[in-house]
């Protein structure tokens, strides 16, 4: 038997063990509730429905009916948009100021004969 054949068999066995419930249960040896449930994909048996107490349900209902509506004033998305607008405004003012400075420098560096007569 070649090395590749052995590797193939081992791989198939490993795949079978990890995917087939009964093999998994046999491998574990001792059958238990945990093994049975997970092996058979009956995990829903682990989660029988639980209900809130009637007192809790009634009292929460009453509180919800009486609660004042709290509409959040500080919407984080609005705050983020406002911050972004301020940033764009500052950037625009900065760009204009830079352009003005460059214009002044260019104007002053021109030879005197190009300047308008005073």
């Amino acid at each position: 038997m070649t090395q590749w054949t052995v590797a193939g068999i081992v791989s198939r066995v490993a795949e079978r063990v990890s995917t087939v419930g009964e093999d998994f249960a046999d491998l574990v040896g001792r059958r238990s509730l945990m093994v049975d449930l997970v092996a058979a994909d009956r995990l829903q048996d682990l989660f029988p429905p639980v209900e809130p107490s009637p007192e809790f349900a009634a009292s929460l209902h009453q509180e919800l009916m009486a609660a004042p509506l709290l509409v959040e004033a500080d919407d984080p998305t609005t705050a983020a948009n406002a911050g972004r607008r301020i940033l764009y405004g500052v950037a625009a003012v900065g760009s204009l100021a830079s352009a003005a400075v460059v214009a002044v420098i260019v104007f002053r560096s021109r030879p005197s004969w190009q300047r308008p007569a005073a």
Partner: protein
Amino acid sequence: MVDTDPDEVLALRARDNREVFGVLYERHLRRIYNYMYYRTGSAADAEDLTARTFFQALNNLHRYQVQGVPFSAWLYRIAHNLVANWHRDTSRHRTTSTDGLIEIPSEGDGPDHSATVAEERRELHAMLRRLPSDRQQLLILKFAEQMSNEEIAIIMGRSEGAIKALLHRTIKNLREEIMRAKREGP
């Protein structure tokens, strides 16, 4: 008729009618409580987080958009965010999660059998609670809330295929974890 209207219609009407919100509350209370119970493992925490879910829903109804996701998915997303914050906060204070362990009544063949079953369920729930948050959420939505992969995909914001693959991987990992625990013994 309020009682037969779909959730999405009621959610719009509930913005200015508290009684209508009461109908939505009655429809979803048990499932949200059930979800919270299995996410936290304690009735007291489940009550607290269930109450917070409904208050948050009430205060944010004006943001709910019918064209977005179904109302129940929107409600579960609120519940999930709250429980994720709760886990983050409690993990700062608790080193072990032995308090508030789930006690589920089991039908048994006798006191010994019942005790064994209860013990094994506790062990398995402890394993579940060691899983990453998204996998816990997936298992609880699938097996406690008995939702379809499509519904879970909407709640978790993933494709149906991704949910199917994650479910397969999660159950496989759980099996491996049990095998490891059994090999190592008590």
